[in-house]
C-alpha cells in the first residue's frame, strides 16, 4: 500500500463529521435501493439482473460489431461519431470544433468519463470556459475537487461548506439554507445554459440499432445541456453500447433503482442526431465521441472484461463496508468503491496503487447488489494474483516469497510442523489469552502490522497429534 493511500484512509477515519456524512448518505441510498428492488415491488428483479448481464456480455463479446452499427445509425440520423484513444484526442477534437465555430462557453452535464480525462482542465487551459451544471459537480468544480461518489458527487460536503464556496466564488452573501443555495445555482447556471455555444454530456447507454445516446438524470441539467446550445457533444466509453432500444426496458428498470432507489430517474433522454426538419429546438450539430482511454486493455481477459459491464449506478459503493469507512477520496483515481478497485488497476496498471485490490474484506456484498451481476469479488482476487505475480518479479516481493516458501516447506514436513507447534506452545502466554503481539525480536514489520489488526488463538498445550497417539 502506498504512503498516500494509507495517509488518506487514516485522515478519513479520523474525521468524525466525515464518517457520519458517508455513513448516513450511503446508508440512505442503500436502504432506498433495497426497498425498490423488493419482491413485492419488482418481482422479476433477479431475472432482470441475469438478462442485463447476458446483454452486456453479448455486447462486449461483439463490441466492434455494435460500435460500427451504432456509428452507421448515428450518421443515418445526421450525427457524427469520433473515435478517440485518450483525453488528448478528445480535447483536440473539442478545441478544433470550438475554434471552427467560434465557440467560447461550454456547459457540461455530469459525466464520469470526462472526469477520467480531466476534460474541464484541458479545455480551460486553452481559454474555453467549461461549466459543470449538475449541482454537486458545480460545487466541486468551484472547489477544485473530484467527485466523492459516482452518483452523489458532493456527498462529503455540508451546507456550510457550500455556503463558503458560493460566497468565495460567486460573490453572494453567505447562505446556509439548502433551498436557497439551490436557487442561487439555478440562476447562475441558467444564464450559462442560455449563452452556451456547446453542450457536452456523457452517456448512460449508446443504442446500436438507433444510433441514440441515452442520458438519465434528476435535475434537468442534462436536458438543457443537450438541447439548449446549437452543438451537442456526447462523450462515452466504448463499452456503453447496447444492441437495441428495446433492451432499455431492462436496463432502465435496474439503473435508477440501484443508484438512488427511484423506479425511474426524473428525466430519461433518448437522443438521436441533431434536430429534424420542422423541430423547433434542439441542437443543429450532434457528435458522439467514443473513448477508449484504456478500455481495450480490459478486453483480452475473458473474466476481467466483465468489469466493462458496469452501468455506474454506485450501488456497490453504498453497500461496501470498506467504502463506507474510507470514503471516495481515499481511492487513487476517479472511480471509487468496489468498482473503482477493479477498474483502476486495469486502466492505470497494477503498480498505480498495488494496495487497492487488497482494500476489501471480500464479503461479497458488492457482487450481490450489482444490477448487471459483475462478480466483483472474483475480479478482485484475480487482480490480487496479478499484483503478487508482478511483485514476485520485483525485489521486495522476494521476502514474501521466501516466507511462503518456508511455510510451504513446514506444512509438507510433518515432523518439522510438529516441532514448530511445540515450540510455539511453549512460548505461548500461560494465561491462555489471545496472542496480540510476539516477543521482541519477532514482532517486526509486516508481522507486527498483521497482529495489530488481528488476535491469534494460542496454540494448544497438547496437540491433536499427541491426543491421537495417546488415544
Amino acid at each position: 500500500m502506498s504512503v498516500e493511500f494509507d495517509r488518506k484512509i487514516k485522515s478519513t477515519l479520523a474525521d468524525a463529521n466525515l464518517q457520519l456524512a458517508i455513513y448516513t448518505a450511503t446508508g440512505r441510498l442503500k436502504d432506498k435501493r433495497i426497498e425498490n428492488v423488493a419482491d413485492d415491488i419488482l418481482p422479476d428483479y433477479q431475472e432482470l439482473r441475469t438478462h442485463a448481464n447476458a446483454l452486456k456480455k453479448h455486447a462486449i463479446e461483439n463490441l466492434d460489431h455494435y460500435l460500427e452499427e451504432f456509428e452507421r445509425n448515428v450518421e443515418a440520423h445526421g450525427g457524427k461519431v469520433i473515435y478517440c484513444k485518450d483525453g488528448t484526442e478528445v480535447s483536440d477534437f473539442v478545441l478544433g470544433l470550438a475554434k471552427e465555430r467560434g465557440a467560447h462557453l461550454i456547459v457540461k452535464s455530469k459525466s464520469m468519463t470526462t472526469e477520467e480525462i480531466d476534460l474541464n482542465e484541458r479545455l480551460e487551459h486553452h481559454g474555453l470556459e467549461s461549466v459543470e451544471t449538475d449541482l454537486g459537480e458545480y460545487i466541486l468544480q468551484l472547489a477544485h475537487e473530484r467527485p466523492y461518489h459516482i452518483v452523489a458527487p458532493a456527498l462529503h460536503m455540508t451546507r456550510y461548506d457550500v455556503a463558503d464556496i458560493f460566497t468565495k466564488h460567486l460573490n453572494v452573501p453567505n447562505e446556509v439554507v439548502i433551498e436557497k443555495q439551490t436557487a442561487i445555482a439555478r440562476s447562475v447556471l441558467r444564464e450559462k445554459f442560455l449563452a452556451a455555444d456547446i453542450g457536452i454530456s456523457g452517456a448512460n447507454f449508446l443504442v446500436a440499432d438507433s444510433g441514440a445516446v441515452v442520458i438519465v438524470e434528476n435535475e434537468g441539467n442534462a436536458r438543457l445541456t443537450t438541447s439548449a446550445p446549437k452543438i451537442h457533444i456526447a462523450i462515452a466509453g466504448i463499452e456503453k453500447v447496447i444492441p437495441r432500444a428495446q433492451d432499455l426496458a431492462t436496463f432502465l428498470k435496474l439503473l435508477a433503482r440501484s443508484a438512488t432507489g427511484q423506479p425511474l430517474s426524473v428525466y430519461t433522454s433518448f437522443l438521436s442526431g441533431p434536430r429534424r426538419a420542422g423541430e423547433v429546438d434542439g441542437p443543429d450539430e450532434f457528435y458522439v465521441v467514443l473513448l477508449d482511454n484504456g478500455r481495450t486493455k480490459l478486453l483480452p481477459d475473458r473474466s476481467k472484461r466483465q468489469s466493462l459491464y458496469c452501468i455506474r449506478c454506485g450501488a456497490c459503493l453504498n453497500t461496501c463496508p470498506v467504502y463506507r469507512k474510507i470514503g471516495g477520496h481515499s481511492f487513487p483515481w476517479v472511480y471509487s468503491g468496489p468498482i473503482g478497485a477493479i477498474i483502476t488497476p486495469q486502466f492505470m496498471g497494477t503498480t498505480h496503487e498495488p494496495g487497492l485490490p487488497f482494500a476489501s474484506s471480500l464479503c461479497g456484498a458488492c457482487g450481490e447488489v450489482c444490477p448487471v451481476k459483475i462478480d466483483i469479488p472474483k475480479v478482485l482476487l484475480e487482480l490480487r494474483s496479478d499484483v503478487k505475480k508482478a511483485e514476485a518479479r520485483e525485489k521486495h516481493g522476494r521476502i514474501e516469497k521466501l516466507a511462503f516458501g518456508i511455510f510451504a516447506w513446514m506444512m509438507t514436513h510433518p515432523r518439522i510442523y510438529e516441532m514448530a507447534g511445540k515450540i510455539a506452545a511453549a512460548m505461548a502466554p500461560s494465561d491462555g489469552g489471545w496472542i496480540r503481539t510476539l516477543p521482541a525480536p519477532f514482532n517486526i514489520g509486516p508481522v507486527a502490522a498483521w497482529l495489530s489488526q488481528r488476535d491469534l488463538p494460542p496454540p494448544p498445550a497438547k496437540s491433536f497429534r499427541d491426543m491421537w497417539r495417546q488415544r
Partner: protein
Amino acid sequence: MSREHILHRVRTAIGRSAGQPVADPPPVRLRIPDVPLAIRISIMLSRIEVLAGKAMRSDDPLAVVAAAIEGKTAIASNAPFLRELGITTLPGVRTCITDRAELRDLCATCDVGITSADYALADTGSLVLLSSPQEARMISLLPPAHIAIVPKERILTGLDELFTVLPDPASQTSSMVLITGPSRTADIEQILVRGVHGPGQITVIIV
C-alpha cells in the same frame, strides 16, 4: 482519428475479424401486464402524487388550465390537441412559435409551459414526450411549472409496453424524453429540493 486503431484493438482482444457475423443477441424481454384502462388511470394518478406532482382526471381541462394559469404567463406547444381544447386561446398564453431563439426566450421568462404527451407510463407516473414540430423540447423544461394534458388512451402500463408500441423511437424523433415527476436534486446533504434546473411543479391532467 483513431477509428481503425481502436476497432483493430477491440477485434484483436475479443478474437473477431472485421465484418464477422454476430450470433443472435439474447431475446428481447418485454412483458406487458393486462391492466384495464380504469386501473391504469388510477395508478398513474397515484404515482404522480407520490412524486409530489399534481394529477387529476378532468372532463373540462380548459377550466382547470384557466384556473391554474390565471394572472400568469404561459407558453403552449403547437399540439393540435391543445388548440382543439381551446387552451391556446386562453388569456396570457402564447403559442405557435416556430423560431428557436424566440421560443427559448419566451420559455425562459414565462411562468408555465403547457404540453400534451405522446404517451404516459402508469407504473412509474412518467410522461413520454417526443420532440416534433408540434412539441418543442424547451416548453416542458425551462418554465418553473409544467402542465401536461394527456388523453387517457395514451396511458400505457410501463416501459415494456412503451418499447413494444415504439420499438424504434429514433425513426420518429431526435429526442424522446421520459419525465417522471418534478426536477429534483439531493446533492447537498441528501436534502431533497425540487425545481433545480427543470420545472419544480408538474401537473398532469388526464382527459
